[in-house]
């Protein structure tokens, strides 16, 4: 039956998650073995999914089911606290406090949005046009790179305080990428 092979492997992933949770809750001599055992079970489930469910489809099914069972393990271990008792202060880092300067905010938004998108598009198209591979392969890989690079650029420009450096890099990448595409001119 379709998909039921994944259910057969889910208990192995569940076993792995339970071992890891046990290692997390008990800091004793067995902890390293529990960590190794937990990850080993997850790896076994992933490896077994290939012959059972298919070369690419199997790991995709297993990762979806393993994530779900791991979250179930997390939920099962919920620690309920009373709202009126003040919880112990946790050590958590705060976001950096930046000076609020309007032009920097607008420039940062421009870098993360339109310019980051243009730079990602330039690299993606350069790969699609210039990369040494079959046309459809480089088109798809180049296309897939666009959201990936745009997202990376977004994360970088929004967190880097040196926004003029980011501006220079993104402009350079855009010019170089589109320049390479225009120089070659065809697929």
């Amino acid at each position, binding site marked *: 039956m*379709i*998909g*039921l092979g*994944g*259910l057969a492997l889910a208990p192995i992933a569940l076993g792995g998650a339970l071992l*890891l*949770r046990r290692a997390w*809750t*008990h*800091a004793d001599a067995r902890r390293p073995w529990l960590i190794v055992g937990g990850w080993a079970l997850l790896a076994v489930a992933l490896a077994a999914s290939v012959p059972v*469910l298919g070369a690419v*489809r199997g790991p*995709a099914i297993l*990762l*979806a*089911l393993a*994530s*779900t069972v*791991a*979250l179930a393990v997390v939920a099962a271990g*919920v*620690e309920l*606290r*009373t709202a009126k*008792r*003040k*919880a112990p202060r*946790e050590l*958590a880092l*705060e*976001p*950096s406090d*930046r000076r609020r300067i309007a032009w920097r905010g607008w420039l*940062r938004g421009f870098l*993360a949005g339109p310019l980051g*998108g243009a730079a990602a598009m330039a690299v*993606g*198209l350069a790969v*699609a*046009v210039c990369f040494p*591979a*079959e*046309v*459809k*392969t480089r*088109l*798809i890989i180049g*296309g*897939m790179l*666009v*959201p*990936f690079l745009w*997202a990376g650029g*977004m*994360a970088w420009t*929004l*967190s*880097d*305080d040196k926004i003029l450096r980011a501006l220079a890099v993104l402009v350079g990448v855009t010019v170089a990428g589109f320049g390479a595409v225009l120089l070659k*001119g065809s697929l």
Partner: protein
Amino acid sequence: MHAPQSKPKPGKPIWPKVPAGFVRAMLAGHSALGLAFAALIYLVCFSGAVAVFTSEFTRWEQPAVPVLHSVTPAAVGAAFEETLAKNPKAHDLFIRMPEPAYPRLSVHGDDAKGAEHTWFADASGKLVAEQRTPWTQFQAALHTVLHLPSSWGFFVVGLTGVALLSSLVSGVLSHPRVFKDAFAFRWGGSKRLQEADLHNRISVWGLPFHVVVSLTGAFLGLSVLIVGVLALVVFDGNREKVFALFSGPPVADDPRPAPVIDVAKGLAVLQAQNPKAGFNYIFVEHPGEAGQHMSVNRVTPGRLSRGETMIVDGNAKVLGAAGFEGGNLGMAIYSSLTPLHFGWFGGWPVKVAYFLLGLGLTAVTASGVAIWLARRRDKGRPAPRWERVWVAFCWSQPLAYGVSAIVALLATGLPPVAVWGGVTLLAAASAFLWTPAVISVRLRSASAVSLALVALVHLGLNTGKAVDPVAWILDASLVLGAVLLAASVWATKKSAAA
């Protein structure tokens, strides 16, 4: 005598030490991006979790249509010919064949006035009903284009995917306690800690899913833009030349009249070539012209790909394959994007997992904003108006989905998107009336009632008919959803009273 148990000392961290300044900078970027896109990401994630079951909702919304687990080529040919007879000048027709997730035979085409219709056929190929599934179409369009004009809608959804992917990158890089807190899930007490645990645990353990859906979603959404720019740079703006690369052997356009293509014969030829592969759709172009041809998609069991497309000409001669399954790496990736994004590759277990993980991603978005609001409150700079607005917006969606489904079942003339928009606005307006805790409880209660009512109305309309069994399963699931929401309200009230 045993010494009293003390809390175990934390071991040496496995994760490399990340400089605090780097983490703080990443957190700043993560917060800025998350806040800018929070509402869009929330909407796309919530609608995406529901859209996993688009095929099932189509069956649920019109459950009395014949359930067909297989169909003969002759029946498909008959359904095609009857549809074409309604408009012999149709430019193209789209035939959907029975599959495990969608055991129906349907033909989509336009009538003589240009209006588009989809008809369902029985096992003999006779058309028996017209498709009327406004709610299913509404929820699918909300996820894919947000009901905006299609190019803009795809772009906005794609950009939302990029923002989500970027948040994943900055979120992972700003989480130095990924192993130390791997299973910590504290509920109650500090609001900020509770939301942070929810946010971080779902984010980390669901990370493979989050990366897959955001990357594939961003690519699918931005593909219109990417193809447009590529065409502009390489093909003088001709997009068709880009699409032609992925369409298989070309068939020259020839408008001279010709006997209509024999769909049944073409299917029989393909069936003989590869008896193991199933059919899932057929796209017939220019029927009745010398240049007529059909693209037939075939699914090989056990593969991630959405199938291989075979091109068949007007004389039922197989011209070749597009190359999705037997071609190169790029085609293999391309053909797996849609199944990977929607969870349509592993039967119902994967769909259920995708639904739960999709709701988890929705909760991650909701809790991300809640952390920011709690942090402001902890620092003595509360934003009470935004606290109310965010809670009202988040809990507006299950209610708006429930009410729009009830109206779609009872009053087919009303567009569900208008009902959804109206209920969303009304629910959001509750931000002006109550505290966040009251808004949450009341909207959750209303959502529970609406989901139960959807199931009751659906049962009332279909009891006594021969109905697709999936409809009953979805009704039971809606009731289960209502019970869970009601239980969450009960738990909240009990906790507040304690």
